[in-house]
């Protein structure tokens, strides 16, 4: 009886859906979430859209690449990819770089009390500089972050089929979860986290109550830079490292930050997941899931080979569509962000 029921279940299709739909969405959503947390913190505290964030992720990944080239055996002790073990170095370097960029390019403009949109443009200038530097030193080709050898693959058997997850993907999902919890504890329990939330809510009130805006700004860049480096490294570990990685990723990250509500770190994580899942489901071939139903349907209904909402080459439309819908329908985002006007 039980065996008969199992046989009737479309296990193969179900596992395919978990692998190509749910897990793929979770993976890309984690990358978006790591980027969007930084964008939303910067947007909430410094009040501008940081366009150079995608390139900061690329630079973080390249720092990790350099570390791997210097210490190729770095990961063998723990049985993990060298890039993951050396990732803290990349995070520290990128965080310092972020502080340096802020000191050199954004802080003078803030002191001159320019309109926020001028700082946005300055961040576009920084974006181009980072792009130029990365391509100047690394060329325009692709790099492999994993020095030789196949990725370790985890298989979880489910009803006779395997749910497949590579090691970098598992690390990415795990790291995002840990980072989310750590961020939550930092923002709610630590002094600096509370100060950051206060500045995000009301900068003037925060200043008169004795919060040092400078140290809050520094902490913001440290968190944003470190998470960006982690996101870039883990993405590059999962796929490949390309210098133009950043430009394709910046729009979904902004969409995630705005969907989640500007200045809301939890919103950014939720928004990243939302954008990631929507993107994956939009290009997912749904006819795979409909095929098991074919015997139940009348003959004149034919299931096409491909039912996808968006062709893969138009993937970039998805985050944009989400962005437009949110801007029309609820500009504050799902979690009621602060900065609208």
């Amino acid at each position, binding site marked *: 009886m039980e065996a008969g029921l199992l046989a009737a279940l479309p296990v193969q299709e179900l596992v395919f859906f978990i692998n190509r739909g749910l897990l793929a969405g979770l993976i890309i959503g984690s990358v978006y979430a790591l980027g969007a947390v930084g964008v939303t913190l910067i947007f909430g505290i410094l009040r501008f859209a940081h366009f150079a964030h995608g390139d900061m992720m690329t630079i973080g990944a390249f720092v990790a690449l350099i570390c791997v080239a210097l210490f190729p055996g770095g990961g063998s002790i723990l049985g993990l990819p060298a890039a993951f073990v050396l990732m803290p170095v990349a995070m520290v370097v990128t965080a310092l770089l972020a502080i340096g960029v802020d000191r050199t390019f954004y802080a003078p403009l803030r002191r001159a009390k*320019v309109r*926020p*949109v*001028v700082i946005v443009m300055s961040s576009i200038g*920084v974006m181009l500089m980072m*792009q130029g530097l990365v391509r100047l030193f690394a060329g325009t080709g692709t790099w492999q972050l994993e020095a030789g050898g196949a990725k370790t693959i985890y298989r979880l058997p489910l009803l006779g089929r395997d749910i497949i997850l590579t090691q970098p993907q598992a690390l990415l999902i795990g790291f995002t979860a840990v980072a989310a919890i750590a961020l939550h504890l930092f923002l709610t329990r630590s002094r600096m986290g509370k100060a950051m939330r206060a500045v995000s809510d009301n900068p003037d009130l925060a200043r008169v109550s004795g919060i040092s805006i400078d140290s809050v700004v520094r902490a913001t860049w440290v968190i944003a830079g470190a998470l960006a480096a982690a996101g870039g490294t883990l993405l590059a570990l999962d796929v490949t490292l390309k210098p133009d990685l950043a430009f394709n990723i910046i729009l979904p990250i902004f969409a995630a930050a705005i969907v989640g509500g500007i200045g809301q770190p939890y919103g950014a994580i939720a928004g990243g997941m939302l954008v990631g899942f929507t993107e994956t489901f939009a290009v997912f071939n749904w006819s795979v899931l409909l095929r098991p139903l074919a015997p139940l349907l009348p003959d004149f209904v034919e299931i096409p080979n491909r039912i996808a909402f968006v062709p893969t080459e138009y993937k970039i439309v998805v985050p944009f569509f989400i962005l437009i819908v949110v*801007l029309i329908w609820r500009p504050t985002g799902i979690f009621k962000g602060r900065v*609208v006007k």
Partner: protein
Amino acid sequence: MSALPRRELVLFSGLVVVVALVFSWMGAAYGTRMLVEASCYAIIGLGLTIQWGYAGLFNVGIMGFIALAAFVSLFVTYPVNAAFWGSGAPAELGWALLAIAAGAAAVYAASQTHRLGLPKAWRTLLTMIVLAVAYLWAQSIFDPATTRIERGAGWIGGLGLPVWLGWAAGGVAAGALGWAMGRITLGLRADYMAIATLGISEIVKAFLKNADWLTRGTLTVSPIPWPVPTPQELGFVASRAAYLSITAILIAVIFVLLQRAWHSPWGRMMRAIRDNEVSAAAMGKDVNRRRLEMFVLGNVIIGIGGAALVTFTSIFDPSAFMPLNHTFLIWVMVILGGAGNNLGTVFGVVLVYVIWTMSEPAALFLFQQAASWGDALFGWRAPADLSTRALQMRVFVIGLTITLVLRFAPNGLLPEKPVKYE
């Protein structure tokens, strides 16, 4: 207007000297080509100076508007493709377009059901369901139609109309897209507009690149018809000079109109809105509507300039549209020249474009030198793709220029002049 505008005179005479030097080094054909391209960029720059200089609107999707205008211009002016019109494909495509219109009407109707007393939550749900169904249905009719065009006639070809009509249509199309963008983002923070325009420009590019039935995609279309006799008929210098005269007339007309608008009550209202939105609104100005006006007008001009630029290259290649060349370069031109000063914008465009074209051989030369020095002194082997990397240096320089200008000369070389009313 009392004193001689010495700053303008000095800067422009310097520019003339630089251009003359380029002519003498690189020859007349190269020089005229550079000037024609600079003049097209000048039209685009004037469009941007309306948006940024007059109204403070932040458009980082110039590439998308240029690409759209260039495509529409191509569609209007390219010779008719008889193979397409002779087949059954036009009828099929017509049905597909009707299906899209019907789907849009159904979605609109569903979104209005709250007037019939449906609760808002149900209306939203109903609209979403109707949207998904209508989308899949229209797609199922549209896709076979486009596939048949690609299999049969290849692509739909053009309409074979005069070039000026194509440029005008390109401007209108860019303006229409700008209107849609503006309606959504103008009421919000300027940052949202930046993000949205960046997104739409990538989408326009992705669409033009992949819609093979419409644009031949990566196969590219050439030659695009010119408004003047082509180099094959007249020779390079003469035909390019003729083209230059047309773009120069366009610049002159747009320039005079903008100058008049700047000094008119309308221009004063725009500056008031830009400089103090709250008080302008308190004076009864409809801030968002005026901004939309500016945004659309700027995009129309950007579209005309973009159509002229791509027509001049005489090849339509969707992958050739780059955010660097078609968005950020123009930003550097406008903010370096002086946003809000039409003369400054034209100056900035020509200056930056000359530097931009000259920087390619200069960067290559510098890097070859550095590589040979490095080899001689330290035995350093230059990477094989040194020349492609050297060109990336220009990306860095563009970014550095943006940040430096914003910090040290936020008003540009020829700053905006405050208009005084006696």
